[in-house]
Structure formats: C-alpha cells, structure tokens
C-alpha cells in the first residue's frame, strides 16, 4: 500500500513537472496584500493583469504570486469594498511588490476606481463556497443582540440547524459531526456556548469565514459534509486599538496593536456572559455562564519568514450549587510558520493542539459523590506548500498528521466512603494524509481544479480490543472476545484515496461549474439525542467501527446582473451519497460504556437538493435571498423496517431573507426572515402498560414519521451611531437595538409524548398527551453598545 501511494504521488508530480520546465523563462511578481488601515492580510484579494486579462488571488495568508513573460504590465489589486489599486510594473527580473489596499470610504488621490467588474463568484473555479466577512455578520440582527458567526452562516443556502438555540449546524443534509470546524487551522470539537445559543467564535477576533459545502479541495479532509474555515485577525500592526461591547448577555473587550510597527502585532479578545450575576438574587448558588479568550501574536522575521501563534480558551459553567454542576470547553493552540522558499513557492508549517472536555460533579460531600469527565485531545502537524507554477497552474502539496487521545470517561464514584473508579481506558489513533491539488486554467473559458488526497487512519494501542458478534439487525452486538494491547502497535488500519475535481466553464456573462468530492471520516460524533449537545461523544474508527465515506456531486450556474455586478445569483444542485454513517442500536448507552462499539451500527445516508441564491452587495439597500429545496435520509438495518427515513435535520423548504438599509449616514436598519419546514419526529400510534408504566408504541415501527409545524420568524435590528453629522468623535461607537422573533411566534423545537406529570396510583387511569416545546416563544428585545478607540 505504501509503494502504491508513492507511485500515485510520483505520477501526479511528473505530470506537473512538464509545465514547470516550460515555465522557466518567465518572471514572477509576488508579495503580500494587506489592509492599509490595520495591516491585516487580505485573504482572497485579487490580482488582475489588464494586458493579458488574467490574474490570481491572494492565499489565506494574503500572499500572491504570478508568473508572466517579461514586459510592462498594468496590474490591478482588488478587494470587495476596497478601492482598486493600479500599478504599472516593468517586469525584467523577479519582483516583490507588497500592496496595501484602502477602504472605499477613504478616498486618496492615487487611487483609481475602475469600472472593471468584480465577478469572482462567476470566474473562480470554486463552487459551493460561502464567504462572510465580519462586517456583514455584524449587520445581521442577532438573538439577544449578540452577533454570532454560526448563527449567521445558517442564513446561507444549504446550511441549517435542528432548531433554535441548538448546537452546531447542518450542511447539505449532513450531520453536525460531519463538519470540520477550523479556527486558525485548529479543529474545534464543539463550537457552542450555552448549549448552542452562541458559538465559540468571538466576532471581535474573527477576520474571515469560509464555508466549503462541496467541491472540497484536497488540502481539506477528515469530515464528510463541510469545512468551516475561520481565520482570526492578526492584530493591528499600525496602531493600538481597543474595541468592545456591552450587551444583554455578555460583554466583550479586545485589545490589539503593534509590538513592533509593521513587523509584529498582537490581538487579545475576551468575553464573559453575566446572566448569572444578574440572576444571582433569584438562583442562590445556581449559576450558568461562559467565558472565552482568543489571542494571536505574529512576527515578521524578514520578507520570507513570518511566525503566528494563536490560541483559544473557553469554558461554559453550569452549576446548581457549590459542589455540583456541569462544565465544558475547548482549548486550541496553533503555531504557524510561513516561509517563502522563493517567489513562487510559499509554504506554511502548522503545529496544532486542540482539546475539548466536559465534566459532571454530583454529591454533597467527599463521602458521597460522583465525578465524571470526558476529553478528546489532538496534536496535529500540517506542512503546506503553495506553488505558483505559472499563470495557468497553482499547485498545493502537503500533508497532515494528527495524533488523537480519546478519554471516553474518567469517573469516580464514592458511596459511603467506598471509592469506585469506573474510568474507561483511553483510546489512541493516528490520522494522516498527503495531498496534491492543482488549479489549472485551460483557456479563458475553462478552469479545472483537481486533486487527490490519500488518507490513513490507525487505531492503536495501548487499549482493549473487543470483538463483537452481530445479533439481529438494530440490536446490541454481543461481546465475544477481549484482548489487551499494551504497546503503541496498530490495532486496525484504514486507507482511502479521495479524488477531488472541479470545473468552471464560462458561458457569456455566466459560468457553469461542476464538482466531485470524495471524503473519508475516521472519527465520529456519537449522539443519541434529538439535538446536538455538549456531551455528544467523539469516538474513533476501530476494528468494529468503520470509517464513513462520502461522495458528493454538485452542478451549478452562476451569473451576475446589473452595473458593477450588483446582483450575484446562483443555482446549485447537489447529490450526496454516504456509506457507513454511524448510528446506534435501540437503547444504546453512550456514556461511561466500555462496550460502546457494540452499540454502534452502520447505515447509509443520502441527501440531495437545489440551492438558489440572490445577493446584492452594493448600494444603500443590500442583502440576500437564499432558498434550499432539499432532502436528507438514512437507511440502517433494523431501523424503520430497513427502509429510508428522513433525518432529524431533513428540511424540505429552507428560506432565508436578509436585508439591510442605510437610512442615513448614522442609522441603518436590518431585518431577516426565516421559514423552515418542520423537523420530522417519531410519533407513537398506541400505548401499553407494563408493571404500571405506560409506554408509547408505534405499531408500524417507523422512524421520523411525523412533521412538527414549520418554523418562521422575523428579526429586526437598528444600528445607530451617536454624534452629529460631520463632527469627528474621539470614540468610534454605535448602539444596536434588536428584536428577535418580533411577532413572537412559538416556533416548535419538538413535540414529545409523555404521561401526565404526577404520580399515578397503580390501577388508576393514566393520561398521556403530546406537548409542543418551543425554545423561544416570545419576542426577545436587546440592546448593545459597541466601541472602538
């Protein structure tokens, strides 16, 4: 297998080497593109060569490189809502040209605003990608007035969640655990605060968000459904600035500035919620709060070397008295080194640590208590090479190795002073991948992106290896053998080849794009609850649990309308076919269960749909309409009579409207409207009684056979900058007033069936009823004050 991998890589590389040779007599122009105001790298800024009508764009570190025949060129540097900068460059030898772009609102003399259109959405080969910059996110009216990254992406086509306030998000009918969430390259294993009302991303610290729903490039992998790549701000390298906000739920403060001007900068942002403090008189010692710290430092050693160190630390704490409670949180740390080997070969080496844990504590004293926690810790090394071969080819080559340590449960119970340690053994695994990916412009009309990722996963010792024997489908597997592995030897190894390909073909003012993605997923988020929760468990593929495999096909048409491409439209269809999705047996116990593998079974998944999107990015009135018509289904032996059934996040119609109107220079109004088909749930037909307990029963044995009513909601927000027109304020500040769910719709989260509360004396009648639960059943007004100085 090892030699097979080398053969494939070698043959791929030899294809490219032909183009490398032919590129020798050309000259390279390269450099970094930054924001003039704060020195932040501008991800995806475009570089356009007028004479050749060709160009490139800056990578995620703001680096660009373009190789041309010798000559004199007019080069445009562009970025949305920044003034285009035009440079005339005489290329006789390799040249480094670092650029700083200026926002449109600050007009300077040397800037030429061109009428040339920005049409990246049509001309890029990239499809099924959603980008949101933090400025847009800040305009969206938010729950309790708190801007949130994950809630904002749910307004985009193909993205949803199982209900208001629930953790995580679903992309194109995939589960929450099938999304790879990256914060500065570090995987985030649980992205929620307060059970999902807010996400772990502090908007003050976020620079750029990219959600890849399909056509996933080969440099990403490890999850079936999507990649959410969140990049943090580097920190203002020009001047010190302090920003923050005081809101209804939490307060934020961020400090950033240069450590050494234009060489080194830092960024620190903190948040803490304070409902617990406000509620203290009513709740005694009970408390519920979260806090997080996001920080980054970077240093430019010289033109060719930059170092970035970033980290996140956050925790949610939910206590009902001093000793008893529940808490959870993430820690991530990323050290990255950007190195330019030459003007065409950019590299990045990242060392990453990430961990998520949760813990419960019960019991009044040390003689009677129960403490339990669970953790996943990972260490990752990622080398990445970005080779700008020539104007027509851009190559990515790299690898990734992650060492996993799963601690499923560390649990100690003390009963009357007798200690029982019921901790489970740790599980270990190593996931690695190598990839090569090339973006090739074949002609003005056709651009191709193709790549191959080869991934491996080793479930390794030390640990217990169990063998199970299947019983009837959908039932707990029977343990037949247990062996102990002591060393770091491999228990089970899996390999997968993951081909990826995208194509863009220009037709008139629009383009058609198509893509194919194969992905493999080796770690699984096991949840037996209707909605994702912080106590869902990450568990590795083992000798009993196979990796998940997914294929996605997408086809789309992209077209811009209006002067300056003011309307961006697209329609995309997708079909996903997943194998070996992890499901669980009836009555599965996922907590503190050494034999969890016996409770996990495989199923197949499929999802398909069409996404429509219209966006207006310019003018006083802007916003978007996104609509998804979709289906997401599972088929698992032993469930639903072995037939396909809809997933809990299957949403036939998903309509989102967002609009923002600039009323005056200092006031803007925004609104969003959401309509989503009700989630499917399982309803009983009948009931029966065993030993005095009334138990629901579905005669037809179906899964997710009833739809709860559709949800819809309108939120509005008003942003107001205090002060008088024309008068410069020392502090740049604004207020946001918002009302979430303005017409107070009781949007159902679930309908559940239960017996009437209270105790029934044996033999008495038992009432059973259906209740509809709404997480938010009223309008939620909020006000926040935000400042920068």
């Amino acid at each position, binding site marked *: 297998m090892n030699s097979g991998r080398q053969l494939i890589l070698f043959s791929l590389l030899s294809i490219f080497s032909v183009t490398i040779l032919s590129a020798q007599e050309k000259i390279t122009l390269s450099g970094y593109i930054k924001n003039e105001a704060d020195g932040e790298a501008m991800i995806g800024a475009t570089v356009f060569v007028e004479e050749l009508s060709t160009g490139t764009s800056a990578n995620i570190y703001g680096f660009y490189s373009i190789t041309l025949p010798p000559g004199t060129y007019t080069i445009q540097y562009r970025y949305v809502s920044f003034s285009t900068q035009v440079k005339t460059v005489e290329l006789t030898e390799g040249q480094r040209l670092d650029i700083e772009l200026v926002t449109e609102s600050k007009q300077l003399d040397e800037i030429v605003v061109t009428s040339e259109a920005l049409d990246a959405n049509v001309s890029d080969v990239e499809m099924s990608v959603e980008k949101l910059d933090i400025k847009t996110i800040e305009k969206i009216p938010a729950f309790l007035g708190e801007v949130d990254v994950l809630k904002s992406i749910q307004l985009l086509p193909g993205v949803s969640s199982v209900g208001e306030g629930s953790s995580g998000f679903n992309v194109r009918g995939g589960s929450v655990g099938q999304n790879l969430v990256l914060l500065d390259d570090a995987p985030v294993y649980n992205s929620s605060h307060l059970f999902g009302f807010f996400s772990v991303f502090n908007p003050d610290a976020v620079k750029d968000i990219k959600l890849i729903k399909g056509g996933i490039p080969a440099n990403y992998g490890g999850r079936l459904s999507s990649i959410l790549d969140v990049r943090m701000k580097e920190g203002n390298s020009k001047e010190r600035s302090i920003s923050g906000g005081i809101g209804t739920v939490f307060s934020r403060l961020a400090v950033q500035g240069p450590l050494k001007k234009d060489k080194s900068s830092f960024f620190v942002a903190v948040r803490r919620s304070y409902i617990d403090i406000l509620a203290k008189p009513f709740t005694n010692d009970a408390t519920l709060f979260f806090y997080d710290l996001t920080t980054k430092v970077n240093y430019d050693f010289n033109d060719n070397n930059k170092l970035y160190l970033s980290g996140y630390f956050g925790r949610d704490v939910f206590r*009902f008295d001093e000793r008893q409670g529940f808490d959870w949180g993430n820690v991530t740390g990323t050290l990255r080194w950007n190195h330019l080997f030459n003007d065409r070969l950019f590299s990045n080496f990242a060392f990453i640590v990430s961990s998520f844990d949760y813990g419960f504590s019960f*019991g009044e004293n040390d003689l009677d208590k129960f403490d339990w926690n669970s953790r996943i810790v990972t260490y990752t090394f990622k080398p990445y090479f970005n080779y700008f071969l020539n104007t027509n080819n851009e190559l990515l080559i790299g690898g990734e190795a992650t060492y996993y340590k799963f601690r499923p449960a560390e649990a100690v119970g003390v009963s009357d002073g007798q200690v029982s340690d019921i901790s489970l053994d740790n599980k270990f695994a190593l996931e690695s991948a190598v990839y090569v990916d090339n973006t090739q412009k074949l002609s003005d009309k056709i651009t191709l992106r193709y790549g191959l990722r080869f991934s491996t996963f080793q479930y390794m010792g030390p640990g217990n290896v169990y063998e199970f024997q299947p019983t009837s489908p959908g039932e707990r597997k029977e343990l037949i053998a247990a062996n102990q592995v002591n060393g770091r030897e491999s228990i089970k190894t899996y390999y997968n080849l993951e081909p990826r390909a995208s194509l863009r073909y220009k037709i008139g003012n629009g383009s058609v794009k198509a893509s194919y993605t194969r992905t493999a997923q080796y770690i699984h988020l096991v949840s037996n609850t209707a909605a994702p929760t912080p106590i869902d468990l990450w568990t590795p593929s083992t000798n009993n649990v196979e990796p998940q495999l997914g294929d996605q096909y997408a086809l789309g048409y992209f077209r811009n309308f209006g002067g300056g491409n003011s309307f961006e439209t697209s329609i995309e269809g997708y079909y996903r076919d997943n194998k070996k999705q992890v499901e669980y047996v009836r009555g599965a116990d996922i907590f503190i269960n050494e034999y969890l593998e016996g409770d996990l079974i495989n199923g197949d998944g499929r999802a398909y749909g069409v996404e429509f999107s219209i966006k207006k990015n310019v003018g006083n009135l802007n916003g978007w309409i996104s609509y998804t018509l979709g289906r997401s289904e599972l088929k698992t032996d032993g469930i639903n009579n072995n037939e396909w059934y809809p997933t809990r996040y299957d949403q036939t119609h998903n309509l989102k409207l967002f609009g923002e109107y600039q009323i005056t220079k200092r006031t803007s109004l925004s609104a969003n409207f959401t309509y989503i088909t009700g989630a499917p749930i399982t309803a009983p037909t009948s009931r029966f009684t065993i030993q005095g*307990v009334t*138990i629901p029963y579905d005669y037809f044995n179906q899964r997710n056979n009833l739809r709860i009513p559709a949800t819809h909601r309108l939120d509005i927000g008003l942003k107001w900058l205090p002060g008088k027109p024309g008068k410069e304020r020392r502090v740049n500040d604004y207020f946001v007033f918002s009302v979430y769910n303005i017409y107070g719709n009781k949007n159902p989260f679930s309908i559940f069936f239960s017996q009437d509360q209270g105790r029934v004396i044996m033999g008495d009648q038992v009432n059973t009823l259906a209740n509809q*639960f709404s997480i*938010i059943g009223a309008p939620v007004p909020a006000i926040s004050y935000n400042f920068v100085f």
Partner: protein
Amino acid sequence: MKRLIIILIGFVFYSCEDEVSIDLKEAPSALVVDAWINDKAEPQVISLTATQGYFNSEEPRGIAGATVEVTDSKGNVFEFRDNLNGKYTWDPTNVAEKIETVGTSYQLRIELNGKVYTASSTLHRVPTIDSLKFTFKEEQNVFQPEGYYGEFVATDFRGQGDTYWIKAYKNGIFLNNPFDLNIAYDAGFNAGGNIDGFVFIQPIQDAVTPLNDDLDAIEPYIIGDSLYVEIHSITNEAFYFLQEVQIQTQRDGGFDEIFAEPLENVSTNIVDQTPDLNNKVIGFFNVSSVSGRGRKLLE
C-alpha cells in the same frame, strides 16, 4: 442517569410548552404480555392486555380466554388462572412447587385463539439490603431542598453481569412514575461501567428519594414517613428492556428536550411461534428473586 440530567435543566430562557392535539395514525391493537413474577409468597400475576390508541386513557382492555402456564427446568408447572380483566394468577400458598432456586430457568407458554406465545427467563441471585438510612440535609439548591434524604445500602455480588430493579415504596405506595424507575447493572448504570462487587453507586442509592409531582425538585421524606425498598434480580435482557423504557418514558419536556432521545419501540422477549404481521405481540417475561427492607422515619 436521566434523573441527573433533568435536575440540571432547570433553567428557562424564553421557552414555552403547550399541549397540542395531533392526529395519530390509526393502528390495530397488539397483544401485550406483562409477566413479571417473583419468589415472594404472594399471588403472582401475568396480565394479558391489548394496546390502545396513544391518547386513550382508559384502563387497558384485558384479554380473557388464554391458557397461561410457566414451567421450570425442574419440571414444575405453575398454572396461571384467569380471574378478571386478563389477569392470570397463580398463588404460591398451600402448594408444593415454589419459585425459589437461583439458577432455575422458567418457560412461559401462552395459548390464545389457537396461537402459541413463549418466553424464557432465569431466576438470579439478589443481595440483601444491609440498611436504609435517612440523612437530614440543608438546602443544597432549588432542586435539592432541606429535608430527610433516604438511601439504601446494599452490595452487589462479585462477578460481572448481575442486574437489578430497585423498587421503592413510600408510605406503602409503589413509586411508579417513569422517573422513579431505578435499575442497576452490577453496582453501576450499565455493563460498560465495570462497577462490580461494590456498594451500589450513590445515584442509585439516592434514587429511593423521589422527585416531586412536578418533577422539578427532589421531595425529601418527612417525620412519620415510611420507606420500603426491594431489590429484584432481573435478567440482562430485562435490564435492557427497562433501560429502553426509561429512555422512552422519562420525558419531562423543557430544556430536557434538547437531550431527549428519539421515540423508539422498546424490545420484547415474547416469541410468537407463528409470527404474523397482523397479530403483533409485545411485552416481557421475567422471574425475580426479591430482597426487601423497610424503615419508618422517626424523630
């Protein structure tokens, strides 16, 4: 387990809950076998009833006219006679055959309308209850108010795979709310917990102090209350069955809904000898050894 979590979910933001009426699919009725018998010296009952529409709160309809008998591996036959309303009874008083020897296996056989249903179970060992304790505790928080908390002390047998159902009676009334359902695999919550040969873990001991009727706080005992606790040995299959019953019936609503598991039919060990999609059978047969102990809370 669930009991631990619902205590945590006491917080309410802007949530609300309303009773709704839903048209559920009409379904034929299935035969329900409720056959939990034990070694206690009192009449043993096996009930045959029919499932009913989910919102139908009438007493379940009893099924008469069946012959119900249990035979054990020693060759004894226990005949359960129909007295009333589908309740088939066998009285151990004044008869020679007894349910008593641990390790004996039992076969249930039901004949109804020409069809035969069978099930099997084994009598397992049960530990004695060493003591019942009442401890006065100050108010811990809104969920754990001031008062007397009861607990039982018993030690699981050494050797993995003992499963138990712990039943509590407060002032003579069996605590049979879904949230009172207290089961143990060895001394812990499940097989994978690996807590063997210990005193039952604290949450299992504590569960004999019930929740209040609103299920939002524990209701401590008061002076004069009595507590009677029984441990019933159950088969592993019965343990899993009851675990599924917990999942399906402990629906408290509110924020607990975020943690709720989807509705699913619980398992059955009743075998239809001539399986037939139009005449489904569900229910459970289990034979238990029982140990018990009572105590009255005095000043």
